[in-house]
């Protein structure tokens, strides 16, 4: 088969696979689970064609571990899962964050908790994506809302992961994963591909976790002349286990710093509709598509409504949300969960702007009429 290029028509999960392969991913390990299984199936088909390996692991614990293993050996690696599988992956997600191993984890959110409505969409994992693994830790989470964006953000997820030596979660949902629409896949030479930084010191002076001004380590792949030690225990610059309180403190603070200081690079949002409006809808993923329709309908009705769409979930777009809070008279937050992002917006609401949360947890997508009637109710 040939690499798809130019205008294409495909499913979200399919676009994700081509985005990953274009980003340079050559290893996938996963356990089939609805509604993410197409990603595994397509990796099984296409990865060997580009010299990569697809591996169906025995469970999600092992899948995430194998992804870490492949990445430490220098191969860009990823996995995809959903619902209970995402829960099992939290163990080694923490390992990848702590040991700074680049990799990508795709979560096609489905209704939960537990087995839930396995084939129905939801957005209930926003907080789990942020805090699911134990201990203080930073994370990058991106949320696509179209097939095109699924391709683009998969590529971006790998790039951010390599650039900042951190796992990146692509937090999609059943709607975006399974929908089919047009997208344009660029020529290979038009893609920007980021690869992890390699050692820049003589072997004798090399310490894998020693950072320069950027707080980002230069971890050589296993097999290179630079011997690398990676440890899930508290470790010092050498990578070897080191249990001094100061070492633990410095390590976790640096992990946070490397993301905090690069928020501008990492955070992406989209403003849709008038730049300033009385009502601002803050939405993401599948629901942001509904919200766009509402903005268009509102314009026809002569209502002043815009949309702040979160493309980066975490780190949270504090500045952009604060802007929305200061500009709008009312904030509406429709989500397929019980208000996980609405709560986060409340945290930033020093101006006490009224925030209305619209929630759905029945496996059905939020309809434009639900948002519109809320708007009409609150601006009356």
């Amino acid at each position: 088969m040939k690499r798809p290029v130019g205008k294409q028509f495909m499913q979200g999960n399919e676009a994700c696979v081509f985005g990953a392969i274009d980003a340079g991913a050559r290893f996938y390990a996963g356990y089939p689970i609805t509604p993410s299984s197409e990603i595994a199936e397509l990796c099984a088909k296409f990865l060997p064609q580009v010299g990569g390996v697809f591996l169906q692991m025995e469970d999600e614990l092992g899948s995430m571990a194998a992804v870490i293993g492949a990445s430490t050996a220098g191969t860009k690696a990823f996995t995809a899962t959903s619902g209970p599988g995402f829960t099992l992956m939290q163990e080694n997600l923490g390992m990848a964050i702590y040991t700074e191993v680049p990799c990508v984890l795709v979560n096609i959110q489905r209704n939960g908790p537990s087995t839930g409505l396995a084939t129905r969409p939801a957005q209930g994992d926003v907080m789990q994506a942020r805090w699911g693994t134990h201990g203080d830790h930073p994370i990058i989470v991106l949320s696509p809302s179209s097939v095109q964006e699924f391709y683009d953000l998969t590529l971006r997820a790998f790039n951010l992961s390599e650039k900042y030596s951190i796992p990146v979660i692509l937090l999609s949902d059943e709607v975006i994963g399974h929908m089919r629409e047009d997208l344009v896949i660029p020529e290979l030479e038009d893609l920007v591909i980021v690869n992890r930084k390699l050692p820049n010191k003589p072997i004798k002076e090399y310490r894998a976790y020693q950072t320069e001004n950027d707080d980002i380590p230069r971890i050589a792949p296993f097999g290179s002349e630079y011997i690398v030690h990676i440890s899930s225990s508290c470790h010092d610059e050498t990578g070897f286990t080191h249990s001094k309180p100061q070492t633990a403190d410095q390590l976790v603070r640096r992990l946070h710093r490397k993301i905090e200081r690069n928020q501008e690079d990492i955070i992406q949002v989209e403003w849709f509709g008038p730049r300033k409006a009385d009502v601002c809808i803050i939405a993401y993923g599948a629901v942001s598509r509904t919200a766009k329709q509402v903005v268009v309908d509102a314009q026809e009705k002569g209502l002043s409504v815009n949309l702040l769409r979160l493309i980066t979930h975490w780190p949270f777009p504090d500045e952009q949300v604060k802007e929305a809070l200061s500009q709008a008279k009312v904030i509406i937050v429709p989500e397929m969960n019980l208000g996980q992002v609405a709560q986060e917006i409340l945290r930033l609401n020093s101006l006490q702007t009224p925030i209305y949360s619209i929630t759905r947890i029945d496996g059905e997508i939020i309809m434009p009429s639900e948002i519109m009637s809320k708007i009409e109710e609150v601006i009356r």
Partner: protein
Amino acid sequence: MSTNSYKNYLKEEHFPHIWCPGCGDGIVLHAYAIALAELGLAPKEVVTVTGIGCWGKSDDYVATHALHGTHGRALAYATGVKLGNPVLTVIALMGDGDAVTIGGNHFIHAARRNIDLTAVVINNFNYGMTGGQYSATTPLKSKTTTSPLGNAEPGFDICSLAEAAGANFVARTTPFHVVSLKNLLKEGIQKKGFSLIEVITPCPTYFGRYNINSSPVANMHWLKDKAVSVSRYQHMTDEDKLQHFAIGTFVNKDRPDFYTMYQQINDCKWEGGR
């Protein structure tokens, strides 16, 4: 090669190690370093993968590449490392907890897949690091801190498990039989496909104290007395078998490993890909 070249594989600056007096882990570490030295593998060609537990600390003392991960996942990381760069020699050092208790699922599937790895499993019949609780290999009726009156569960036979799952090389030895230990490690590492070397190892501090004796010397005598060759074991009465365990090689075959099969079956190329 000089007799001390095993030192190239060790981080002696991290000694003395954390293990208790008479703990077998140090003997296996030493044999591991000698095996690598005698095989002439450069430290950069080897990735040592460890899990959690007393033996899970062994990566602190090796000078090869190393990956020390979460409890039970060593073989899953190792699988990824091997497939991420198939020229590497990847060796997982695990305890009975890592290998066949919390990580049992990865163990049987790594063996079934016949991935080209070596698993060195130290079996001391309990969790030493957390204070001597029972594991999936603790024998029936043995005393541990979570089976104070005796274990109500029977233990796994790790070698039988690996054999049934499909490993290419399966062997058992002890740190008392240190020459065979070193040789089996070498054989296992050289074998293409999944190799298991189970090392029945003393934990004088817990399992030994509760079930054998707390003296390191007594635990070594126990290994000496209990271990018999595979051929001798086969001719023992059932009653005698209960009092002994077999050491030596149980399986040595050449089923194609996972990556070889994978490449053979998926022989197709993507035109114009990167």
